[in-house]
């Protein structure tokens, strides 16, 4: 039995964190160790989100943790919020995805684009886990190009009528409420995109699990169909407008994902390091061989770089000067880094590395989704390319 996870901190990055940020990190780390690690292997193999963890996560305060206390949230700064995402993803990307969606893609848009009534009604219920949310932006034919969406919202005398289909929706099947993005104008009118709060109980709203996933198996991924879904007039998020609104949400979520990648990479490095010292081959630990040391040195270096870059990103966010391009750089770098770390750790573990009792292959498979969602690696490359040249290549 391995020792409890103690993190990776080669550059004393801890000394750059406040006492409160460290306390938040340590609390979530202890929760993950105690509640998530014992169940995640089975949940992954079964292909089921461990729902029993939701009340504990909510009680701890991880849902929408960087939103204000007046709405039932913890009111943490963005570095502490990032550290929560790091620790959750140290356990499993699917669990971090659950928290990201609830906080950054459901609570954040209600907080940012919602009316005071909507905030007062929904945010405390989402923070307490009483309501579970999902974010309906991506469509079967519109992933990297969400502005092309064909879901529509038409205003009638009774309210808004929504029609369309959404795909790859995390939390979709278990959500009790969905933030649906739809065009209120013509199909080419990107500016007419608005957000709607749609309870899952609305007539004409159906969600079904997407089957056959080989990644994020402990996460709920669904397809949502909206067929003449009638919601009241006040279901619209009044301050939402244009494709910029959902993209602002994605910037929030990607910020957390950048931190999450560090968590997954640390989990893999930690597992590989301890295995390399225990596994004896040719009469000595494999950690005493140059090839395995090369793997470990590479992982440690990349994790340390990512820690410093992401902490600075968090400080910029807390200062209010963070740009979406900076988030793209961190998401792109950290998830690619985590993919590599997971793959190398899996290889270092040899045949054992394919077993679910070790964590690296689960992370490796999960991270392939994370590499692709919330802006694919390639899209972030193009965003950065555009940022530095001023010339869009997409």
């Amino acid at each position: 039995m391995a020792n409890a996870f103690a993190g990776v901190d080669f550059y004393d990055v801890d000394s750059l964190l406040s006492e409160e940020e460290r306390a938040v990190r340590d609390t979530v780390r202890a929760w993950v160790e105690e509640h998530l690690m014992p169940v995640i292997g089975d949940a992954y193999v079964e292909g089921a989100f461990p729902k029993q963890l939701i009340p504990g996560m909510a009680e701890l305060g991880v849902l929408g943790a960087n939103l204000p206390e007046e709405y039932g949230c913890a009111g943490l700064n963005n570095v502490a919020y990032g550290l929560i995402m790091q620790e959750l993803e140290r356990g499993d990307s699917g669990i971090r995805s659950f928290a990201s969606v609830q906080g950054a893609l459901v609570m954040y848009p209600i907080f940012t684009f919602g009316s005071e009534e909507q905030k007062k009604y929904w945010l405390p219920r989402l923070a307490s886990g009483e309501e579970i949310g999902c974010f309906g932006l991506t469509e079967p034919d519109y992933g990297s190009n969400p502005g092309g969406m064909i879901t529509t919202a038409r205003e009638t005398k009774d309210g808004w009528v929504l029609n369309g289909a959404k795909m790859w929706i995390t939390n979709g099947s278990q959500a009790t409420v969905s933030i649906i993005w739809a065009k209120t104008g013509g199909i080419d009118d990107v500016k007419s995109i608005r957000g709607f709060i749609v309870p899952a109980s609305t007539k004409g709203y159906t969600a079904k699990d997407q089957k056959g996933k080989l990644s994020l198996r402990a996460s709920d991924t669904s397809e949502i169909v909206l067929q003449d879904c009638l919601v009241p007039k006040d279901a619209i998020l009044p301050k939402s407008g244009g494709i910029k609104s959902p993209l602002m949400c994605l910037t929030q979520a990607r910020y957390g994902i950048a931190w999450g990648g560090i968590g997954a990479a640390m989990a893999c490095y930690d597992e590989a390091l301890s295995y390399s010292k225990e596994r004896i081959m040719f009469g000595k630990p494999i950690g005493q061989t140059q090839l395995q040391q090369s793997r470990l040195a590479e992982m440690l270096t990349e994790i340390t770089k990512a820690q410093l870059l992401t902490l600075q990103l968090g400080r910029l966010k807390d200062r209010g000067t963070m740009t979406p391009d900076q988030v793209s750089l961190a998401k792109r770098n950290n998830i690619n880094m985590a993919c590599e770390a997971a793959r190398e750790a899996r290889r270092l573990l040899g045949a054992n590395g394919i077993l679910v009792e070790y964590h690296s292959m689960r992370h490796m498979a999960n991270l392939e989704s994370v590499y692709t969602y919330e802006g694919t690696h390639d899209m972030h490359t193009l965003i950065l390319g555009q940022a530095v040249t001023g010339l869009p290549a997409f």
Partner: protein
Amino acid sequence: MKIAVCIKRVPDMDLRFAIGADGKALDPAGLKFDIADFDGYAVEAALRLVESQGAGEVVVVSVGPAAVQETLRKALGMGAHRAIQLDAAEVPFDGMAIAAALAAELKEGGYDLVLFGRMATDSANQTVGPMTAHLMGLPCVTAISKLDVADGRGTAERQLEGATETVEFPLPAVITIDEGLGRPRLPSLKGIMAAKKKPLEVKPAQLGAAHLTVDVIALPPDRPPGRIIGEGADAVPELIRLLQTEAKVL
């Protein structure tokens, strides 16, 4: 119900540690500190008592340098109401010196209960609780695993080897806590934020005289390397002889 819980900041002994150059203390480099395990159980016990009674105050107290404030704030994050740091450059090894400082602070505090963990996970002396009780002139029950309080009296259970002992005592009293009363809760994120706003008083520690000092800390000697006596059945007589005469286990 007013409860004081005395807590100690200790290094996490599950992590790798080294003995410092002077041979008398651990090398602080790379150590991670936290509330001593049993002290966490004591904070949990106090919070549960106050919650079950619907009213009361839990005050956490720690002797030591400014660093103990982090440990005190962790307890505040769990739900304790206020904290007192008895400021001392270092924590003496001698339990009597610590007990004197605690007793001086707690004596006039009007506490119904003073709780301790049954021992600190670093020094493992198990002395400060009973010594504080003695200095305060209060009854003391050690290493309890169950606690009920009603009408100015307490009932506690202690786990003995193969038996349970039930002890009754009048309040106020000093109690040291074993496991069994419920695992310490994690500080919630809201609790961590709230802890910053809760009162944390710093007072000079009135330490007693220290008569004990640590002479040396030594790790157990390395095990001698194994050796191969021979192979197959022919080696058995020699193996038995060595197990009898050298290892002395047969």
